[in-house]
């Protein structure tokens, strides 16, 4: 579930939204810099730097790499190992999978039997009701984690309920949320989903204070921003969890953090999540598979192994912009989880880059020509 908000109402702030893209991109597209003598025809005709850049992007680019599912290393292509692997398939699909489906089914039944009466019979602003619902959601998430034999190691202190803090984590799959939720209930900011996930969002997750929105609706952003501000003031609310990348990344890279979570003026607690790909790739490639297929893939694997680090809370330093702050948090998470940073906005999966980047290149080129004309 790609989740994120972009409280700063308009979408015109693309410029400020991209922290330091130039640091990452090749800027040597201006060959004119090299020889500062007067401009010659050959300098104008030589467009090789731009061409090289274009071809380089076609051959390989850091953005596509972020969303590439990595196929498992083939280890079974061997006469001795192959029967073993076949046996594994039989166990995984014939025994583990049905058993896990049964666990899930029982979990859901227990959950609904307890949740429905509590939800509909108890009065709305009742602390006990909140507490029970919270526990039930945590339990259901544990059932989910059990359904793929999640081997999760949590490092660091367990989050407590208190106002004025948000948790931010890197995002690989909707299961990030389940893994974090089983430990302690979070209110999460998430993308609206269709189907059964949407049903759960609407009917159950609302009770733990989750806020959802539609990525493409600019209007939603404002509403979400307001809801977030109200949410973090209240000590009775579950801690807020934000995935500032706004989209699932394959757990080898981090894409740009949207700055919304970092301009709330409260403590930001980074959470780093690293999956071990030994049995299954936990990356949810939402363009290629539905969440149900993704879950089925996890449920037919031996186990989902991952590490979760709750890191030290960070505060905005004086003189630091929210973008710098977001980058600093991204550094902390990337280092802890061993991820590489790329400068791209994850939303580029859904849209084209802003013409501003092209214009910047054009400006650099034009400036170099004009400067050399003057010097002549």
């Amino acid at each position, binding site marked *: 579930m790609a989740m994120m908000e972009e409280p700063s109402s308009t979408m015109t702030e693309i410029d400020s939204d991209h922290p330091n893209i130039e640091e990452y991109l090749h800027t040597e597209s201006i060959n004119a810099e090299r020889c500062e003598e007067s401009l010659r025809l050959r300098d104008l*005709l030589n467009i090789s730097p731009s061409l*090289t850049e274009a*071809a380089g992007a076609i051959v390989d680019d850091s953005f596509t790499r972020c969303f590439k599912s990595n196929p498992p290393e083939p280890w079974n292509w061997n006469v001795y190992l192959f029967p073993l692997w076949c046996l594994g398939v039989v166990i995984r699909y014939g025994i583990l999978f049905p058993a896990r489906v049964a666990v899930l089914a029982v979990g859901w039944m227990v959950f609904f039997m307890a949740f429905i009466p509590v939800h509909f019979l108890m009065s709305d602003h009742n602390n006990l009701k909140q507490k029970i619902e919270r526990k039930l959601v945590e339990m259901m998430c544990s059932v989910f984690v059990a359904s793929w034999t999640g081997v999760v190691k949590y490092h660091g202190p367990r989050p407590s309920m208190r106002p004025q803090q948000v948790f931010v984590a890197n995002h690989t799959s909707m299961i990030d949320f389940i893994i974090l939720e089983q430990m302690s209930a979070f209110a999460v900011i998430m993308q609206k989903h269709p189907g059964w996930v949407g049903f759960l969002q609407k009917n159950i997750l609302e009770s733990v204070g989750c806020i959802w929105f539609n990525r493409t609706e600019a209007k939603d952003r404002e509403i979400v921003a307001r809801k977030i501000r109200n949410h973090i003031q209240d000590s009775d609310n579950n801690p807020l969890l934000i995935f500032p990348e706004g989209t699932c990344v394959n757990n080898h890279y981090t894409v740009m953090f949207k700055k919304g979570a970092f301009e709330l003026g409260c403590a930001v607690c980074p959470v780093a999540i690293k999956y071990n790909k030994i049995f299954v790739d936990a990356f949810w490639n939402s363009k290629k598979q539905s969440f149900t297929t993704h879950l089925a893939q996890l449920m037919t694997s031996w186990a989902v192994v991952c590490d979760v680090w709750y890191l030290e809370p960070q505060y905005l330093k004086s003189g630091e912009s929210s973008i710098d702050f977001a980058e600093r948090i991204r550094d902390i998470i990337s280092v802890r989880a061993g991820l590489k940073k790329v400068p791209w906005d994850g939303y580029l999966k859904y849209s084209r880059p802003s013409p501003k980047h092209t*214009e910047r290149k054009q400006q650099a080129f034009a400036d170099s020509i*004009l400067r050399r004309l003057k010097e002549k």
Partner: protein
Amino acid sequence: MGNTSSMLTQYDIEEVQEHCNNAFSQQEIVSLYHRFCQLDRSGGGFISGDEFLSVPEFAVNPLSERLLRMLDGLNFKEFVAFLAAFSSRTKMEQKIEFIFKVYDSDGNGKVTFDDVLNVMRDLTGSFMSEQQRQKVLMHVFEEAGYEKDSSLVLSDFTKILSNSGLKMEVEVPID
């Protein structure tokens, strides 16, 4: 399960190598093939302009629109042939010919003043006025001994660019 990393046979690879004048090694061809399949999201065996533009690093290039005219709808062999101009094994003359083709948008073997102006417009956008561009171009044209209405052919390009320290190389990542 198992190793399906390359579905290309020796014949396929050799055919492609021949098509691009051995600009790439066999491993590089295999790598390029994976990249091609990755970019070809629709799985149709060719890459559409839209699919190229889905690579942000390509889309922000000022020349991307112009290159798309050469790139749109390429199949794998053509894709490799396009990239061959950026191989370290390709001769300078061929690289210059590639640049010439980028300029020569109507493909008539001649590059006019206007062709050069068009590329310059792509590269400078709104940061130079049309008059400035014309003036600059007039100036360098005359300095190099050409008139405004003279058109350049490939040999002119070779003469102009061959000693300019042109470097146009892209490394194909092999994993």
